[in-house]
């Protein structure tokens, strides 16, 4: 399946309340070295969820881009609501939503 199928998916709590949409996906390169290559396997670790705007791609959330002040303030504020939810805390069935496992509060695993 394609990673784009994860993007823009709604994430809901067990009680049905929406936590926002998937804006980005965090990958960790901690798998075994791939056969025939030099790269380690890329594991899908967590989804970045936010209620607000799609600006997560710009790079202001993780402090990668520091300026100019005007944009950092504008997008930093918009991206502030974004948080990571580990894939282990989510159930991905055939439905349109990603569902939080029922015993997790809000699935905060850090930005």
């Amino acid at each position, binding site marked *: 399946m394609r*990673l784009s199928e994860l993007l823009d998916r709604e994430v809901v709590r067990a009680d049905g309340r929406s936590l926002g949409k998937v804006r980005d996906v965090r990958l960790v390169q901690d798998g075994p070295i791939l056969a025939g290559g030099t790269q380690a396997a*890329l594991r899908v670790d967590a989804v970045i969820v936010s209620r607000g705007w799609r600006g997560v791609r710009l790079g202001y959330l993780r402090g*990668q881009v520091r300026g100019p002040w005007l944009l950092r303030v504008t997008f930093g504020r918009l991206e502030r609501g974004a948080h990571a939810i580990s*894939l282990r805390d989510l159930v991905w069935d055939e439905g349109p939503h990603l569902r939080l496992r029922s015993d997790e509060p809000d699935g905060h695993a850090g930005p």
Partner: protein
Amino acid sequence: MTGRVLYAGLELLDHQLRDREGRLCGNVDDLEIERSPDTGELYVTAFVAGPGALLQRMGRRRLGGWIERSNRLVNDPERDRNLIPLSLASRLGPNIDLAVDAEDLATSDTERWVRDHLIGHLPGNRHRAPE
């Protein structure tokens, strides 16, 4: 967490692919993910780039799928040409460097057609303009 952390949307999707000579060979249109039968974890196994791939990502699945299938019929019905295995990547920087030639990728299919049927017939198409 050991291992490099990458954000798919920020650092991989829509980034430029380059072949082993540094030639431009498409943008990353999507990523293929599979569940490992051993660990149950999801892994990114391939880049997706080629005719129809971007349309599929942007929601036009039928049109994109049709374009992709038509291209496969013409070029190589055996496998999904748009998949570029992750093991072929030599570097995941702002550009994604691949250890293959652009000619072997699906992203060159339309280039080849245009070259062989149109541009290749114009006089001077082989000449490097003298510097």
